[in-house]
């Protein structure tokens, strides 16, 4: 096991060579905001919340997909990064219809928490107000596209942990939507096992358990990491 030494926010630390900058930072107690990353799933670098400034690279890189390297000097809290993070969160709010007051996830939502963390007191961009559908054709679960941030955590949880690959993303840009099977109602999906891993993985109110109303959704997002650790390391620990 090779070890690399690097500096994050002025702290000199060592990390295993297979670790990402995000893991190294977390081990050292340095918090970097994330959204599309979820322990137990592969990383895709989709949301850009975790961007960090690595000296000498000339560009900002996502901490969740960047491997540590010897001598790296990393800044995670520069003014520029903080202003970009707030901008990213504002754009997510502007892109779909997030009305926390009437959302199933109100009070237990990673997007809402990120808005608080980045100090978002209002959204400076024009809201797009897209027309979004809600799919409640599944017996147990619902999908509300109004609240989806396209993190693809559901897609990866379903594919990598459950092995069903019911979920995918169709379309491009602001027209992109998560879909089940061949873009058909979830309730008619032949691959869905109704395990609910996608629901637990979802950071927002986009995937929910039917029958829950405003502010009732409380998910256990560590369940995915727990399952993967149990499977790979035979350790039943959170």
């Amino acid at each position, binding site marked *: 096991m090779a070890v690399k030494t690097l500096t994050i926010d002025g702290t000199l630390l060592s990390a295993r060579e297979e670790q990402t900058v995000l893991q190294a930072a977390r081990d050292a107690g340095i918090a970097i905001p994330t959204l599309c990353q979820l322990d137990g799933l592969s990383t895709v670098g989709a949301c850009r919340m975790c961007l960090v400034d690595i000296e000498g690279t000339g560009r900002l890189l996502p901490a969740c997909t960047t491997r540590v390297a010897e001598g790296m000097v990393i800044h995670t809290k520069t003014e520029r990064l903080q202003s970009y993070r707030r901008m990213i969160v504002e754009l997510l*709010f502007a892109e779909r*219809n997030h*009305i*926390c*007051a*009437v*959302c199933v996830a*109100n*009070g237990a939502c990673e997007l*809402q928490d990120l*808005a*608080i963390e980045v*100090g*978002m*007191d*209002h*959204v400076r961009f*024009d*809201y797009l*107000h*897209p*027309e*979004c559908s809600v799919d409640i054709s599944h017996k147990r679960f619902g999908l509300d596209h*109004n609240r989806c941030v396209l993190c693809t955590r559901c897609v990866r949880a379903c594919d990598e942990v459950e092995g069903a690959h019911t979920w995918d993303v169709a379309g491009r840009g602001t027209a992109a939507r998560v879909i089940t099977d061949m873009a058909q109602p979830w309730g008619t999906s032949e691959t869905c096992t109704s395990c609910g891993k996608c629901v637990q993985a979802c950071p927002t109110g986009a995937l929910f358990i039917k029958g829950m109303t405003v*502010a009732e959704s409380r998910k256990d997002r560590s369940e995915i990491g727990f399952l993967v650790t149990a499977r790979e390391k035979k350790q039943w620990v959170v």
Partner: protein
Amino acid sequence: MGRLKFATVWLGGCSGCHMSFLDLDEFLFDLAARADVVYSPVGSDIKEYPEGVDVCLIEGAVNNDENLEAAKTVRDRTRLVVSFGDCAVSGNVTALRNTIPDGARMVASRSYLEQADLNPMIPQAEGIVPTLLPLALPVHAVIPVDVYIPGCPPPADRIKAVVQQILEHGTAHLEGRQLKMG
């Protein structure tokens, strides 16, 4: 600072933010000792928004032409404009109709035609019944806003924090969990 000229208005909102304001309970006495309520649907009976207001809390989204005029008047005559509650800050529930194509017409026809038991008709009276704008907008989309109080409604302690900061420093800025929407 002398006595604060304090105002509140409500635009396209449900009055919940004002009800939460009344939840300030005994702090209202402290406020009354240091401020004159020069305009407010819950604190005065003055019909015309006055000149030279120090602080105005605006509840509600800008939903119709009357709201738009009111917002502009407030801005012209007020030093510190505060977006008060989620509808003012983001459009919130008032702006749900924005996702429906031709939403202004659709919601009016749903409420006054389809749901009517007697005399279905869309109320129209020039200069009396305001006309819906094509989109319900957050206040900062139509006038510059100085301070934001998220929340649906904002809890009383959050309103109190803002009012206290204004009394002490002339302006306010919320942080942390005090920014939680919904």
